[in-house]
């Protein structure tokens, strides 16, 4: 058994027993996104996150730049004049099936909820920062304001009241769809077939639909019209904890080398 199997979404949700819920997620259909950034604003409002300031990036209509500790939705704008099109994509935490951030968190501040989503317990996190380089999507980040890390909670508080997450609620074109992951996957498959039927979008694909990628599929997955890296997404994200056994094995060789070397250096008659 792999080290990280016990922390997979299904295994952890099962520990909730009767309180376990069907896994929830987002299907972000980028073909419908109009770049209005209503999701960004709704997220900031609901989660009471500070604004990003007045930075002007000169990178199309994107002045948000990235997801970080206080920005949990980010709309990417990709202008492709040679293809006569704009690509827009609302990015978010992927709530991975195998979540690297959760696996490496030493305090247990990052946990899996009964909805199969991943959240930070802000009163437990001590700001060690390990999850930051561990995330294969560059989502989670340390917040300079209070020292701990922050990321999308899939509006855990709203979910517990049976409400839709703020971003999906605010999306005017249903580019962001929220629901049971099984339903979303079915809907996404149908949608992909329809989109691909159009000769301009034969390259369309479902990104992170899972389960055959390096994170075992995501709770938040996407319909993309171009390669992931064009949107600033990694083409082959991996939860590296999958290889942790191999890494410790290499470390064990090094440990043996330490003992061996020091013993060898100590050989010889006493002075």
């Amino acid at each position, binding site marked *: 058994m792999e080290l990280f199997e016990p922390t997979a979404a299904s295994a952890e949700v099962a520990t909730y027993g009767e309180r376990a819920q069907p896994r929830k997620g987002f299907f972000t259909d980028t073909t419908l996104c109009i770049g209005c950034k209503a999701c960004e604003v709704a997220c900031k409002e609901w989660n009471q996150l500070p604004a990003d300031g007045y930075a002007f990036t000169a*990178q*199309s209509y994107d002045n948000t730049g990235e997801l970080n500790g206080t920005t949990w939705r980010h709309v990417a704008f990709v*202008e492709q*004049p040679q293809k*006569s099109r704009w690509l827009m994509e609302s990015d978010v935490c992927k709530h991975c099936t*195998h979540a690297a951030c959760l*696996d*490496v968190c*030493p*305090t*247990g501040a990052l946990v899996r909820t009964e909805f199969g989503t991943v959240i930070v317990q802000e009163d*437990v996190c*001590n*700001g*060690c*920062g390990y999850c*930051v*380089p561990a*995330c*294969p999507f*560059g989502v989670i*980040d*340390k*917040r300079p304001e*209070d*020292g*701990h890390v922050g990321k999308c909670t899939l509006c855990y508080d709203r979910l517990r009241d049976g409400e839709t997450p703020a971003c999906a609620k605010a999306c005017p074109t249903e580019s962001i769809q929220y629901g049971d992951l099984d339903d979303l996957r079915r809907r996404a498959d149908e949608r992909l077939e329809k989109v691909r039927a159009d000769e301009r979008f034969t390259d369309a694909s479902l990104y992170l639909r899972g389960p*055959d*990628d*390096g*994170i075992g599929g995501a709770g938040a997955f996407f319909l993309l019209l171009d390669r992931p*890296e*064009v949107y*600033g*997404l*990694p*083409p*082959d*994200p*991996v939860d*590296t904890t999958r*290889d*942790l056994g191999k*890494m*410790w094995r*290499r*470390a064990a*060789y*090094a*440990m*043996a080398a*330490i*003992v061996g*070397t*020091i013993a060898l*250096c*100590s050989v*010889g008659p*006493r*002075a």
Partner: protein
Amino acid sequence: MNTLSRASEPVAPERAVQSSPDSYYGRPILKPHVWTPFVPWYFWIGGTTGAACVHGLIARIRGDDELAEVQRWVAFGGIVTSPVLLILDLGVRHRFLNMLRVFKPTSPMSVGSWVLSALGAAVTGSLVADKVLGAPALARVCDVAAAGLGPVLTTYTAVLVSNTATPVWHEAHAELPLVFASSGIAGAGACATAFAPAAQRRSARRMMIAGAIAMGVTAREMEKRLGVLGEPYSRGTAGAFKRASSMLALSGVALALIGRSSTLANRVAALLVAGAGVCERFAVLDAGKQSAEGPKYVVHQQRETLQNGERKPLR
């Protein structure tokens, strides 16, 4: 109906920054690590402490008691300073005890926190048993425990950085433990060379010289195998630390060999080799930062994996 496809010659505004096919405006795909310089210092001190525990026990068994005492105090200094450095790096310092809130085998940092704590108890226990309680048997039990945990403390930090998405770290998971192990041996050797009496210095000198050479060789091997991904090691801050590390290691080894019977020469050599180890850790940390910030490294490595079909699908 389809206005988009009719626009045959779209004109992009001159000042607009074009997004390339390989990245999103050259923006990082990953977040670089957010660790402060306390962390590379801890990596070096922790690595040295671990190797010192092993050396201390072997010296004790051989009857080199003065050497064993030196390594005991080196280790004690290490286990006292290490937690301080780690706490200073935390974003919410007063929650440092949360590090021991759970034990998580999937988190090398959790494993490391427990190992550091246990090693701290063993080193302190040995000291108290010998100096306060006058119970040498108990002290030896503690020494054995410390020597068992020491190598874990020296190498777990390599596993820690390898278990991230940062390409230059993760792809080096085979070599990094050896680099850190060599640096730990060199560090412990350097400390004992500086403080042990001349009559018991031999093993320490050997460790210092062998460790410094091994660190250079394993690090070079690592960078060679990384190929394009290893580029950061020759650029920017990482490149500077790398060059400093090589120069310090070389001059330290040379000085140790030339002035082998001179205490002063040995002490200076020890300082140089110790500095080489510190610089190596700083180079590793900065290379990680550059690696995560360059989308080309991330895309390059992942496209290659996808093409070769190396990655086996998960269940």
